[in-house]
């Protein structure tokens, strides 16, 4: 039986008999497909399928025969069946019946312009959502001012601990190392001119004005922003946010406002902490490489670092913080109920808030050219 070809046409005066043999199963589908594609079908007439030689048959085998016969101009309904076992007949009938639906038209591939338009309209479609979220947040904050009893102290303090207190070690490490590296590289240059003492001017201004606020903001975008989106997104997936609403609470008051307030409070504090640790890092380098003692360093610092500049760095921080919290929480609420969505939105939070921080920083620089 294995010697006989899988399909063999026996011509009769009224048409022909197709004798099937061997395995007609998924494992051999590709080779059977090639065989049938090159098969010489009879021209017209009635066809009968003889399944008496079949060893094994599965649904895909029936499908293959049906589709090829259909394409060759033999509607399945007009094909006689003979020699099939009882269970095979059931299979053949089921497959033929289920496949007897009009095929879908091939989906049109949209052109480049159409795809561009689609994407733009989808992005634009998000805008009302963002504005709506902003309005909702504004309303909740206004509510809070009118009715301060609604302030959720416990949630806010939990968040303050998470975004503020627990971030201290990593902020210290990062700003200290940047202070060290910055002072070291600057020191190599100014030593050539014998202008060692100016290390204090350079490092303190750079730290207070740009480095510490930006570093802390970037750190917060990655650390707290991602956490906000993932926490709120996971709650969205498990319908906890809907549960909050049906319990008569506002998800905005319970989830977003405490996070927003916590990060807005924590960020300037962390930035100031970063200022101090960063400058301390450069003081270490100044004393070991440039022969500037700590006392000299601090005395000089008092003279050259205007308070304005420190304040300027600190008042950027809450704005960064608000932008990060807004982007992160909105992305959290935008999570849909599937596994990939949480990851996608978290990534999007980190990227968007980094871009937002850099843009806001640039705006501040333009608004305050005098500093």
């Amino acid at each position, binding site marked *: 039986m294995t010697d006989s070809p899988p399909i063999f046409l026996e011509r009769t005066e009224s048409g022909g008999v197709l004798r099937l043999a061997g395995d007609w199963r998924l494992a051999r589908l590709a080779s059977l497909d090639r065989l049938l594609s090159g098969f010489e079908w009879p021209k017209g007439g009635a066809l009968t399928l003889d399944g008496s030689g079949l060893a094994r048959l599965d*649904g895909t085998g029936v499908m293959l025969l049906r589709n090829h016969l259909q394409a060759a101009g033999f509607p399945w309904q007009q094909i006689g069946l003979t020699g099939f076992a009882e269970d095979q007949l059931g299979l053949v009938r089921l497959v033929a019946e289920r496949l007897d639906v009009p095929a879908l038209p091939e989906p049109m591939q949209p052109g480049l312009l159409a795809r561009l338009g689609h994407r733009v309209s989808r992005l634009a479609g998000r805008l009302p959502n963002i504005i709506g979220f902003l309005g909702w947040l504004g309303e909740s904050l206004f509510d809070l001012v009118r009715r301060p009893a609604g302030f959720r102290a416990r949630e806010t303090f939990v968040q303050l601990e998470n975004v503020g207190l627990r971030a201290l070690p990593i902020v210290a490490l990062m700003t200290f190392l940047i202070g060290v590296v910055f002072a070291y590289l600057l020191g190599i240059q100014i030593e050539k001119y014998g202008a060692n003492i100016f290390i204090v001017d350079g490092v303190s201004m750079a730290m207070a004005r740009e480095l510490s606020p930006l570093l802390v903001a970037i750190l917060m975008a990655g650390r707290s922003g991602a956490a906000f989106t993932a926490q709120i997104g996971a709650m969205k997936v498990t319908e906890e946010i809907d549960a909050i609403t049906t319990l008569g609470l506002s998800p905005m008051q319970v989830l977003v406002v405490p996070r927003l307030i916590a990060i807005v409070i924590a960020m300037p504090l962390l930035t100031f902490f970063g200022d101090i640790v960063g400058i301390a890092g450069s003081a270490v380098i100044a004393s070991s490489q440039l022969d500037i003692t700590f006392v000299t360093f601090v005395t000089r610092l008092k003279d050259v670092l205007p308070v304005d500049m420190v304040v300027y760095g600190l008042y950027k921080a809450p704005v960064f913080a608000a932008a990060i919290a807004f982007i992160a929480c909105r992305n959290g609420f935008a999570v849909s109920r599937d596994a990939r969505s949480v990851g996608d939105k978290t990534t999007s939070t980190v990227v968007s808030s980094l871009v937002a921080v850099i843009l806001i920083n640039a705006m501040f620089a333009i608004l305050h050219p005098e500093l």
Partner: protein
Amino acid sequence: MSVLEVDGVYTQLAGQLLHDGVNFRVNKGEVVALIGGSGTGKTVLLRECVGLLRTSGGSIRLLGEDIWSLSPQALNQVRQRFGMLFQEGALFSSLTVAENIAAPLREHLKLPASLQNEVIALNIRLAGLPLDAAAKRPSELSGGMKKRAALARALALQPEMLFLDEPTSGLDPISAREFDRLLRTLCDSLGLTALLTTHDLDTLWGMVDRVVVLHGGKVIADGPVADVAKVDHPWIQSYFSAQALSRGTS
């Protein structure tokens, strides 16, 4: 001929003895239901049968192979010969229905694209879905359609056996009966053997050949539904009378 032989399986999970010598077998072409109260380890037993969880003792022979003595490669070979329908469907949420069905096909067979699409369409139709469901994502499907899409994926490799974990849970009674009918048709026509866990009494009475009752870590009854319903055991009696009560009051 037995397709599945569960022999003296015992399972210890978190220090607790869950199965204490479970024995039963499933013959070719049979549809067998595993029932038992919550926490009796029906799902655990099902997961042990498909090689997701290791038993603490005893043997499970599936399709003629002792699955816990096989090498990982050989176990994966066996895995191509059965399908599993998870309770929540477990469709890959980032893929469309067609891509979900294509996943096992692409992994195990090298089919030309057009032929693969034909096989996908066949499975979609066998599971009773309209062809336009192919391009949808799982999140766009209703509960019943999700189960059908998951069934289509389980059928993709033309398995000899199906494992189903609570196939009708979460479906409304009409969809549940339709799903039962679909399963029965598929099992009869494709010559499939099926082992399912269920809490659905209508499924038991409607489509199952045999019922295996798990209680206290042992099989306490094994036979056609009508016979099992008559067994004089407190748990079985309260199980089947729960239905009588609900029928009586409605």
